[in-house]
């Protein structure tokens, strides 16, 4: 009855929780056991980026075809992406408090993510301010597509040019090597897929409810 990918999502989520806590991890100072947050915090960012990318794709689709269902999808994916963003931000702040010593450090990646979330907040405000459906769809799609490359420059290019506390960037390249640990990889990649599938599932339900809502209001 339910499609296969939902089952896959459930299995991978259970795998993430079980293997994430039971498989061995490299013993690193300061991080200690909190390195397991990699499966729960970092994956939030991956899920957020994937959802936001999908929302951009639907915005471009809307601009090329002017079909309102594409706009609806773009909005719903953006909402789920924002949800992951909030989860990632809060978990990240807690983790940062215990490893870097403060809830908020001046780090390029943190700033980039904060800016991306501000941009999405602006996107939702813009959606609320326009009065009719087609105008709202057109304006918000243009805004999203216009802002996206600048965000990418912020999130991907800028951190490579300046120092970051995050692994694998300018100031501390050696720190990135825990990513290469094979045990962690075995959980990390499935965890990304699991959380992303969960988000896609939630979004699909939201889209279906919205569609029902629109149809009954006709």
């Amino acid at each position: 009855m339910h499609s296969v990918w939902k089952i896959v999502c459930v299995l991978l989520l259970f795998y993430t929780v079980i293997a994430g806590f039971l498989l061995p991890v490299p013993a690193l100072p300061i991080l200690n056991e909190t390195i397991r947050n990699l499966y729960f915090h970092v994956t939030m960012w991956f899920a957020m980026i994937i959802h936001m990318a999908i929302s951009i794709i639907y915005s471009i689709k809307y601009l090329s075809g002017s079909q309102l269902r594409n706009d609806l999808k773009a909005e719903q994916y953006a909402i789920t992406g924002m949800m992951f963003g909030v989860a990632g931000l809060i978990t990240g702040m807690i983790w940062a408090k215990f490893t870097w010593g403060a809830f908020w450090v001046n780090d390029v990646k943190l700033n980039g993510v904060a800016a991306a979330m501000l941009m999405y907040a602006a996107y939702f405000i813009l959606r609320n301010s326009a009065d009719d459906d087609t105008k709202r769809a057109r304006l918000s799609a243009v805004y999203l597509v216009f802002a996206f490359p600048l965000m990418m420059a912020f999130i991907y290019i800028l951190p490579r040019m300046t120092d970051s506390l995050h692994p694998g960037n300018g100031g501390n390249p050696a720190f990135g090597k825990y990513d290469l640990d094979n045990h962690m990889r075995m959980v990390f990649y499935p965890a990304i897929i699991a959380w992303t599938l969960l988000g896609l599932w939630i979004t699909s339900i939201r889209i279906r409810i919205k569609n029902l809502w629109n149809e009954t209001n006709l």
Partner: protein
Amino acid sequence: MISQIGLIIAKEWKLEWRNRSAIAGLMVYILSGLYISYLSFKKIADPATWNALFWILILFMAVNALAKSFMTESRGLQLFYYTFLNPQVVIIGKILYNGILLFLLGLITFLFYAVLLGNPVQGVEMFLLAIFTGCFGISSVLTMISAIASRAGHQSSMMAILGFPVLLPLLIIIIHLSKNAIDGIEFSVNIKYLTLLLSLNLIVPALAFILFPYLWRE
């Protein structure tokens, strides 16, 4: 096409000159801002603070200056554009005109700022280059945002809400570049920021070029 862009720039300037209150208002805005900072700071010893204050002044001046870019156009003028010109010409012309305007206002700001609050800049030509590329970058972002905001209504507040998240990545690069210019750091070190800024200066107008026609249809 190029002659048409020239036409737009000339027309923008004529409108600006005919109604000098707008540009005079901006000058007063800059001068009073500068004078308030002079009264509160007297002299700024710390180059980072100097730099930050300078770009904050430019930023707010730019938001104020460009908010009216699409608002002041009457229905009739829009109709005229719509019939005789294609949208790409209009947006590129406006970006160029606003860029020139911002650059000139930026130079004036720099002059008075240096006189009133001291001038710690060691690499002046580098700093001027930062103002030049920075102003054109800000202009290309804000002109497009102004077009979106004018279609959405609630002009002035929308301008800030939509503009700041998108401007953030640009501003960080500009501030890095101009900070290096103040410290008199060699050109070879700055080249990475400059190339990034220049590539954004190409990408953003290109995006505006592609996306503006969608805002045009009304």
